[in-house]
């Protein structure tokens, strides 16, 4: 066996705290070391050439690189080994930058630590074996969960690339929260006008299978080969027969609050969510309909000419096989009734941001005239309270919801455009307008439309006659202020939707402290998740405005296509391996596995049915949890076997 050792100076990053020359000399004395060298940047092209020459001239068969974290350059050096005909897994990287030079000041101690780490690595390398990368096939279909703007964009992108895509939406129509918005910042173009063409595209795209009123209930399998069960809930109206004539609606005796208009207008138990809904079909709300069970009213059915109403419709389970999944399950507004001092839910003229969107909308309950809920009067003074729920780690949401500064500014601007002699006052903590043309939008609201900004938070609001008394602070003058408003709009923060939480737990996705899905890397892998083949788009990872949600969706679609476009996928060789003779089938490993990669199967051995652990190598990430959990030592983590780790620890323990 011949081991080559390469110590990197990383400019002065390593060399300033580790005596690299000394380290190289010490390494020459370690077992099997044929050559030991130092180089300024081993990752550079000349550095790689140095290793390649040595492999050729000195017939090296194990390589140890002492440099930065393997997260940085392991792929680089593995490629070097492969180029020279060596197995890429006979490489060991010692991290003497992040774990030595960057965290120590004392050069002699730093050098000693680096030397003992390097010795351990050399001993471990001497016990390494070539590993094999296995291949699995790929199903060229995709699943997108959630039909908001992110899910719509991801589905359209994938479908345009030629992949059959199933779009699953829980509610009766796609469109999500964006369909409820009136106008969008900073251009003030109408939200429905830019959204509905995309919704129509989804409906008529030959590669998209749209399943509305549906939920993903089970996901099995692994990257390239997921098996998905989708529950399609009944709409009780046959979409292919319904002619959208609306005859059923006036005869329905049930009156409910209309969710699309935030409860400000009525709907019947049989209804269409809104005129542009996709799929365009009526549905029956089973919770309020009198007719479904037991059948005591069938007025809608009686008047339905095309006989489209079917009270016997049952939920059905649809099974799909897909190669990649995109989670676009979105957000929901923070329940601002939790902020007692702001009076939402008790004072009728205190409304949420989404409520205001409906009130200002031409398709809303007031036909685009701004009227307050209590008495329908046009408000003359409107107070917009920023950070309603956001930036409040003690009781509510700890984070900035990112879009509220802009949408509260947009609301104030829209209000001033509709009520010219009105006064719009924004109470803010900071104005955050980071986005293309956002700052200009904010300045325009102040400069051209006289929207007033007061820096300070509102402390509380009271009903005072037919007005609302707002108590706030003006930290720029250092004074406390109060004023009477006709309407108070709370710029509500964003939190992960119930669906985001459900799907995260169904798919075993890790979530952050605030319940949003955690990205594989917050900067460099923003649309990947920890699970291969599962990507995330839109506000499921955190608050986003529409442009960000759309670009993350296109990003997720292109990442998913990277998998779907392949015929087979290579799997890392560092997976867990079970010794069936030692395994007693206790199942501790399966419990320890965070990726659901281990199953306990019965096999026939020595004429007996034995329970043994079976590792699905396509799911295994090589984390080693199972190997550590196994009481019998029956699981070996390939590339990190017990003997290799013991050799490493042995070297670290030497004086």
């Amino acid at each position, binding site marked *: 066996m011949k081991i080559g050792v390469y110590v990197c100076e990383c400019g002065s990053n390593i060399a300033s705290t580790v005596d690299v020359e000394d380290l190289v000399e010490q390494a020459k004395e370690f077992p099997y070391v044929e050559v030991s060298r130092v180089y300024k940047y081993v990752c550079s092209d000349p550095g790689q050439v140095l290793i390649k020459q040595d492999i050729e001239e000195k017939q090296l068969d194990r390589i140890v690189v002492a440099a930065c974290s393997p997260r940085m350059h392991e792929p680089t050096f593995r490629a070097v080994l492969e180029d020279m005909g060596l197995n890429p897994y006979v490489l060991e990287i010692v991290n003497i930058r992040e774990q030595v030079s960057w965290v120590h000041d004392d050069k002699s101690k730093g050098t000693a630590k680096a030397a003992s780490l390097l010795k351990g690595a050399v001993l471990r390398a001497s016990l390494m074996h070539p590993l094999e990368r296995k291949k699995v096939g790929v199903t060229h279909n995709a699943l997108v969960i959630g039909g908001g703007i992110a899910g719509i964009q991801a589905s359209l992108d994938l479908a345009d690339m030629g992949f059959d895509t199933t779009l699953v939406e829980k509610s009766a129509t796609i469109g999500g929260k964006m369909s409820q918005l009136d106008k969008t910042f900073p251009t003030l173009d109408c939200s429905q006008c830019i959204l509905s063409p995309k919704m129509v595209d989804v409906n008529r795209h030959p590669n998209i299978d749209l399943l509305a009123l549906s939920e993903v209930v089970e996901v099995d399998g692994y990257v390239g080969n997921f098996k998905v069960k989708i529950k399609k809930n009944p709409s009780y109206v046959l979409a292919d027969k319904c002619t959208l004539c609306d005859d059923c609606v006036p005869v329905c005796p049930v009156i409910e609050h209309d969710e699309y208009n935030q409860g400000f207008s009525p709907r019947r138990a049989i209804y269409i969510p809104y005129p542009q809904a996709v799929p365009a079909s009526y549905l029956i709300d089973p919770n309020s309909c009198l007719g479904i069970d037991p059948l005591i009213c069938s007025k809608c059915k009686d008047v339905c000419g095309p006989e489209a109403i079917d009270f016997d419709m049952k939920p059905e389970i649809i099974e799909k096989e897909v190669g990649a999944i995109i989670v676009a399950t979105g957000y929901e507004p923070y329940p601002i009734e939790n902020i007692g001092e702001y009076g939402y839910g008790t004072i009728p003229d205190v409304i949420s941001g989404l409520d205001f969107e409906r009130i200002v909308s031409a398709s809303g309950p007031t036909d685009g005239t701004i009227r307050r809920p209590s008495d329908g009067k046009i408000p003359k003074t409107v107070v917009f309270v920023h950070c309603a729920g956001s930036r409040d780690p003690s009781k509510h949401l700890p984070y900035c919801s990112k879009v509220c500064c802009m949408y509260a500014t947009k609301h104030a601007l829209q209000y001033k455009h509709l009520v010219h002699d009105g006064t719009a006052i924004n109470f803010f903590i900071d104005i955050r307008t980071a986005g293309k043309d956002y700052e200009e939008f904010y300045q325009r609201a102040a400069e051209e439309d006289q929207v*007033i900004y007061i820096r300070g938070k509102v402390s509380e609001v009271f009903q005072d006659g037919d007005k609302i008394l707002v108590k706030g602070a003006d930290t720029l003058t250092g*004074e406390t*202020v109060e004023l009477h408003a006709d309407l108070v709009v709370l710029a509500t923060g964003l939190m992960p939707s119930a669906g985001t939480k459900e799907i995260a737990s169904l798919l075993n996705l890790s979530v952050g402290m605030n319940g949003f899905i955690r990205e594989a890397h917050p900067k460099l892998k923003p649309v990947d998740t920890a699970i291969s083949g599962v990507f995330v788009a839109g506000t499921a990872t955190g608050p986003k405005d529409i442009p960000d949600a759309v670009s993350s969706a296109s990003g997720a679609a292109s990442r998913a296509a990277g998998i779907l476009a392949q015929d087979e996928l290579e799997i890392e060789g560092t997976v867990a391996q079970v010794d069936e003779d030692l395994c007693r089938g206790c199942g501790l490993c399966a419990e320890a596995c965070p990726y659901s990669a281990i199953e306990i199967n019965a096999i026939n051995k020595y004429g007996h049915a034995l329970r043994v652990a079976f590792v699905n190598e396509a799911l295994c990430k090589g984390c080693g949890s199972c190997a550590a959990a196994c009481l019998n030592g029956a699981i070996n983590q390939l590339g990190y076997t017990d003997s290799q780790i013991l050799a490493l620890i042995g070297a670290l323990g030497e004086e």
Partner: protein
Amino acid sequence: MSYEYLKFGKEEKDFIAKIEEISGQNIYSCYQCGKCSAGCVFSDKMDRTVSQLIHLIQIGQKEKVLKSNTHWVCSSCLTCSVRCPRDIDVAALMEAVREYCLREDYEKIIISEISKEALDKLPNIALVSNFRKKTG
């Protein structure tokens, strides 16, 4: 601390409009960065900083603006106007407030009634301001 009551009625709106008319500036262009106050050599002599005075105009607090000494301490050195990132002629705004005071006969000072002691103590700039008040 008592609560200051904010109103945006006719009186407030007229006041804001008048200041804007005299100065030729849009008072709502100011986003309260404070650069004018930071660079003003007389900030420590003012009871409210320049940017605070502008903010009070924005929210229609006429009484507080007129009672302040800020605009009278201002010597129109124009440092604020040159440095304003929103390109507001801040000195013109100060001048507009002075003008407004004079037109309203607000705090009219009769030079001859100032005591000799006070005259000795007063800096020249204050006297110049006082002459302005008288001539207005």
